[in-house]
């Protein structure tokens, strides 16, 4: 929170200090170092006490790919004009004389929205890397027992090379919907689906149903994917394209390889460890010919 309005900062601390960590800065420039280092969930900036140079700072912050996700609430004087959103790109505003209830609701709603509107992959609109990391790290830290899958498309690259990236994107958009709905149908509450990028997806469900979900996903994909090929390739059952070494060869119809890990028999401290194991298991599934899932059985 950047404000010299003591009445406002005291009220906000009283309202939210229990549930959230609040750090108060007296001017925006002093706050920047902290913002860049720890990416807050919410930034409240008092524009009554800041000059218009602050507009440019917020504008820069919001145009950044990482910091642009930080929700910014502007605090304005009673009759102060709210600048055009093109000049000052904020997410919401509060008037300095607003009553306690109003301030509470506005901030609550912004925090909830920041939680909900996560950074998404532009192709599939699924949560992206930062959210995936947060999801998994939070679950690890709160001691949840859960299983995580890393999903990857077999023979995606040759498909992309042969038909072009627009056709490849069609497949990824379809896969995004497919993972989301297959997972949600099996576990409507407490599951999670994210898109790492390219043809890599992750999802989280309860350990007991993970293999069932993975198998269903593989089957559903196998069932739908032929319609994404041209009729003649579909009939042949393979396509001709070039491999990573530039050699012409034939590639089968795409399938899914899924690597699974979970923390019921082993302990993970960090997102990175867990992601690495899942990715390893995915590579193992690929080595086994693809179109299958492999679950990490190691006890550590």
């Amino acid at each position, binding site marked *: 929170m950047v404000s010299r309005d003591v009445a406002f900062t005291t009220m906000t601390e009283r309202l939210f200090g229990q549930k959230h960590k609040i750090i108060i800065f007296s001017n925006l420039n002093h706050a920047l170092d902290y913002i860049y280092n720890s990416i807050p969930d919410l930034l409240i900036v008092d524009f009554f006490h800041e000059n218009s140079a602050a507009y440019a700072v917020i504008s820069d912050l919001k145009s950044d790919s990482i910091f642009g996700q930080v929700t910014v609430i502007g605090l304005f004087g009673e009759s102060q004009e709210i600048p055009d959103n093109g000049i000052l790109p904020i997410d919401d505003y509060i008037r300095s004389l607003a009553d306690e209830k109003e301030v509470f609701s506005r901030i609550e709603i912004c925090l909830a929205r920041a939680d909900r509107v996560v950074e998404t992959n532009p192709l599939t609109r699924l949560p992206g890397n930062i959210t995936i990391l947060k999801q998994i790290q939070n679950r690890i830290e709160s001691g949840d027992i859960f299983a995580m899958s890393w999903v990857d498309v077999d023979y995606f690259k040759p498909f992309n090379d042969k038909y072009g990236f627009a056709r490849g994107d069609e497949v990824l*958009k379809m896969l995004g919907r497919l993972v989301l*709905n297959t997972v949600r*149908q099996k576990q409507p509450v407490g599951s999670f689906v994210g898109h790492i990028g390219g043809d890599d997806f992750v999802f989280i469900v309860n350990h007991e149903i993970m293999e069932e979900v993975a198998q269903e996903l593989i089957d559903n994909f196998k069932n739908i994917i032929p319609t994404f090929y041209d009729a003649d390739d579909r009939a042949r059952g393979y396509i001709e394209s070039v491999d990573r070494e530039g050699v012409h060869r034939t590639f089968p119809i795409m399938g899914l390889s899924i690597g699974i890990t979970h923390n019921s028999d082993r302990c993970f401290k960090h997102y990175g460890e867990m992601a690495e194991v899942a990715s390893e298991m995915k590579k193992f599934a690929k080595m086994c010919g693809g179109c299958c899932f492999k679950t990490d059985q190691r006890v550590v």
Partner: protein
Amino acid sequence: MDIQALRLQIEKIDTLPTMPGVLKKLLKVIENPKVSLNEIGSFISSDPVLTSRVLKLVNSPVYGFPGRISSVSQALILLGMNVVRGLLLGVSVFEVMQKSMIGLWEHSIGTAITARIIAQQKGIPEPEEVSVAALLHDIGKVVLSLKFPDEYAGVIADAEKEGIFIFEAEKKHFSVTHAEAGSWIAQRWNFPRSLVEVIEYHHKPNLSKTMLVQSAIVHLSDILVRAKGLGFAGDNFVPALNSGAWQILNISESELSGIVLEMDSALSHADDFLLGEQD
């Protein structure tokens, strides 16, 4: 009205109404919180309008893979339960119900069931696609009678009075038939090319470029269902089989009697889907 203007009129149609009886059953299905996607799927697959609604949505540019999905079960898993529920809640019914419409519904369902039997017999790789195409083959009749109710009543009356086929009467009134009208709306709604083609050529399957066998199957099913006297497709008599279709399918007499037997048993189990007048 010239053909271009007619086409523009038809392409303006955003959504089709269904039968009051279907809506009653539909509400029962979606009000059940425990209903599975499979159950909803088999219900949707028994109604041409609900099927076209689902295919229209899943093939819309919003989802990013237009023209790819021709199967109801695949559409449902890609749309997800919440979207499907929402979609079905918005279904309306024909305000003026003609008896002939109920007959058309029964005819469409019968054709879909029969087409699936023949597709399986002929070893077609995607029998569901053929059955969906069969369910939708007369969607042009729904479209024309929705958009031009008075003219279409005239078409039906003409066909009966002059003893001509319904598509001949359509041609006189609209200068196109329901086959073209259906294919226009199917294209407009980004249905896969395969479906569009079968809808367009179900009366002259030999002219289809890439869906010869599938169009011929739907053509034969159409005629078999009429011959059985199931439902009402607008004609009082059964049209002749297109000779090209017969050559394309190459079905022996014993195969045909096998198909008819299987039809009898499948259709006797399909009573649930058929509406009748009691609804």
